[in-house]
């Protein structure tokens, strides 16, 4: 069989073609059908150069712009990863690896970070990346005038400067062992700089594809970057991204072969799509989750027993089956998913228990409770249905949830963080610290539960600077426990990313940190 293995290797490397392989296999006594399957597998598993990938994306708006500071939807995130690189990336094994940086190291207190710039990386305009470009690219998201979504993340940066051509030194206000994750955020694209400023609107980056045309809300087209520094990436010759926000139009386009892949499959029609033999469905579990935050600074949610009663009054399993049709996982009232490094798997799963809910109500000095829950599908598709289901479940625990339907328009400015209780979603964050400091730390601008917990906040600072793996795991475990039993958030579900592609599109292990293979499908996938 070793000879056959050699043949396979030759076939994969392209030294022999399929016909020669079949002839060779026949000579070794392998049946034609079996040999054909083997050849197919060998060829499919090997990334092959060529072809034009056409994507139908359920996002994209005519108001999109190329400025990385304004990237907020899935369309721009995909475009971003096609034309830009970042200091670090999460690879298909889920590990953080250097991208435009070659390596990094931290001081012992994790307060000072040194990033080495990868040599010989070129922008699309021919300029070589140096430390000044990285400093300018990061600074684009800092400072008083920045409108970047990454600004709050980079507030911990006290100073960033270039030390020669190939080193960037970052000073933090406190230790952060996960800082490479933070600075690798998708907004912080590495752009060419001039006199310390980046030209954010040019669309010039270092990525595997060069932007050829971009019509916001309609299409973007790319051609392969011949000087791409990464080996074994960017297999397509050309890429075209269409913004197809209507899910039926997207599905039709995939079925009729006008596009090769689509994101955000309608789960309701998934069973019908699976019948089509030219299409395959892919699914990843990431950090994205739905939440129902309560304002703990307002009554009745300032009483932890009330919060516990509400947490017990929801049948998560039923919600998973109806709202997501099983394409997800139940949540445990904290935002750390199973795909996070320090997920506390030993924490007992909270289940539907009206008696416990009644018990907590009694502890809070109540026999029954009436609370309004504000909901709109802006929070997530099916949010209003979920609220209505919640009302049905909670009724058994003498809790009367009044579902208030809000308009999608202005939901994030008028309802979220304003009304005492509403529906919400989070894309999740790659690290525990990032998630907690964004939405659960005292005083954080998106602390949508207005939650203050002394022990939690103390652990947060300590764990951030802790370089010992085991100790960090314990700390983050305890934080998840505190949040589950005392926090102001109900986390009912983690939602899967479900996407579909034509059978001829091939991919390796799919990464679930974001939609569409970590939003890197353009660089990672290939045609069979």
């Amino acid at each position: 069989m070793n000879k056959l293995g050699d043949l396979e290797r030759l076939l994969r490397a392209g030294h022999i073609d399929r016909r020669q392989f079949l002839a060779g296999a026949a000579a070794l006594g392998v049946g034609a059908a079996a040999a054909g399957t083997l050849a197919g597998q060998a060829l499919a598993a090997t990334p092959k150069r060529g072809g034009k990938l056409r994507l139908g994306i359920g996002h994209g708006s005519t108001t999109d712009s190329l400025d990385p500071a304004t990237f907020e939807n899935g369309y721009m995130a995909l475009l971003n990863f096609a034309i830009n690189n970042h200091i670090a990336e999460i690879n298909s094994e889920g590990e953080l690896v250097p991208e435009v940086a070659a390596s990094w190291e931290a001081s012992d207190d994790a307060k000072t970070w040194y990033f080495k710039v990868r040599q010989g990386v070129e922008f699309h305009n021919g300029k070589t990346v140096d430390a000044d470009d990285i400093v300018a690219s990061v600074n684009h998201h800092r400072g008083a005038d920045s409108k970047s979504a990454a600004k709050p993340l980079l507030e911990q940066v006290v100073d960033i400067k270039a030390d020669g051509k190939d080193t960037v030194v970052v000073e933090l206000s406190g230790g952060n062992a996960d800082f490479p994750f933070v600075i690798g955020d998708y907004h912080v694209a590495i752009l060419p700089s001039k006199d310390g400023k980046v030209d954010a609107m040019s669309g010039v980056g270092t990525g595997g594809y060069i932007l050829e045309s971009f019509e916001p809300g309609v299409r973007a087209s790319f051609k392969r970057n011949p000087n791409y520094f990464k080996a074994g990436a960017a297999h397509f010759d050309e890429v075209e991204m269409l913004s197809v926000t209507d899910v039926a139009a997207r599905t039709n386009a995939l079925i009729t072969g006008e596009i090769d892949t689509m994101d955000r499959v309608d789960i309701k029609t998934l069973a019908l799509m699976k019948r089509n033999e030219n299409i395959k469905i892919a699914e990843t579990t990431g950090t994205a989750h739905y939440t129902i935050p309560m304002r703990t600074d307002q009554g009745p949610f300032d009483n932890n027993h009330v919060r516990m009663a509400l947490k017990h009054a929801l049948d998560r399993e039923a919600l998973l089956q109806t709202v997501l049709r099983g394409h997800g996982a139940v949540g445990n009232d904290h935002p750390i998913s199973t795909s996070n490094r320090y997920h506390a798997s030993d924490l007992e799963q909270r289940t539907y228990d009206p008696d416990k809910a009644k018990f907590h109500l009694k502890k809070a000095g109540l026999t029954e409770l009436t609370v309004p829950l504000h909901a709109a599908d802006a929070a997530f598709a099916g949010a209003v249905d979920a609220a209505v289901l919640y009302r049905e479940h909670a009724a058994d625990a003498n809790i009367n949830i009044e579902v208030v339907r809000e308009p999608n328009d202005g939901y994030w400015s008028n309802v979220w963080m304003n009304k005492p209780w509403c529906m919400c979603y989070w894309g999740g964050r790659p690290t525990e610290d990032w998630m907690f400091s964004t939405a659960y730390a005292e005083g954080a601008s998106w602390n949508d539960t207005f939650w203050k917990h002394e022990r939690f906040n103390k652990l947060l600072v300590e764990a951030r600077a802790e370089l010992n793996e085991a100790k960090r795991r314990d700390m983050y475990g305890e934080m998840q426990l505190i949040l589950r039993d005392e926090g102001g958030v109900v986390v009912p579900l983690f939602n899967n990313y479900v996407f579909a592609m034509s059978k001829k599109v091939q991919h390796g292990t799919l990464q679930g940190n974001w939609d569409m293979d970590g939003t890197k499908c353009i660089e990672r996938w290939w045609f069979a």
Partner: protein
Amino acid sequence: MVAQRLSLGLLTLFVVSLIIFLGVELLPGDLAEAILGQAATPETVAAFRKELRLDLPAHERYIEWLLGILQGDLGRSLANQREISELIGTRLWNTLFLASMAAVIAVPLSLILGLLAALYRNSFYDRAVNVVTLSSISFPEFFVAYILILFLAVDNQVFPSLSNVSADLSLWERAYRCALPAFTLTLVVVAHMMRMTRAAIINLLASPYIEMANLKGMSRSRIIMHHALPNALSPIINVVVLNLAYLVVGVVVVEVVFVYPGVGQLFVDSVVKRDIPVVQACCLVFAATYILLNLTADILSIVSNPRLLHPR
């Protein structure tokens, strides 16, 4: 007379712009909040507002914009700093192309169907054509569109389900890709025009002069073509123009279903993101389309009616 109508039109445009500006001002949130969404913190919103000059009072922004228009400058999109004239230009051309294509199919079709229906009044044909066109207008546009996609794109791959047009396409290729949305629009507008034609002609058939022609022994088709139709033109032109205006400004749903890059999608996106200059520019274009087409209808009505053309 024409000058008066034109200046009235301009006044209408001005009032429309004012109403739109006030309407958008009344919507909750602004561009900075709309673009940053859940990711908005007070500081980033403030910085964004300052950059976009949204911190200025509303009347100052309105006057600034109006002065720009008078100098032929539509301004830039707040969201991505692109020239609005360039942004609207290609999309308006796309929309006009689709509207013309639908009109080229729909107008002659509905006139012929209407004439024949009047000619063979209460026949099986008359009833059948009424039932079919009324059914197609009674369904929501997206439903008609999906039915067409199902039969002509998915089951039988005759036309593409996405109208993916770009500037470098040949006319023929462009028309091919626009076929399904054009058919959808045709189905949506035919009933209105067809029934108006039929009603106008049937109405006239009861007049004394038609009776006279009948008594003279003229053929039915000659009576309709030579005696009834010229006098029925005025109401028909009005309904045709009204539908043409609809084809230009009312096709948002069709554009969404076929992912057609027209003005409608631009308009909706801009309203959602509170991109006020673009919203205003789109509204001006829409208002101008209506005003211009109404003007055309009036003039054509006058031309087609000798009593109005030569007033005593």
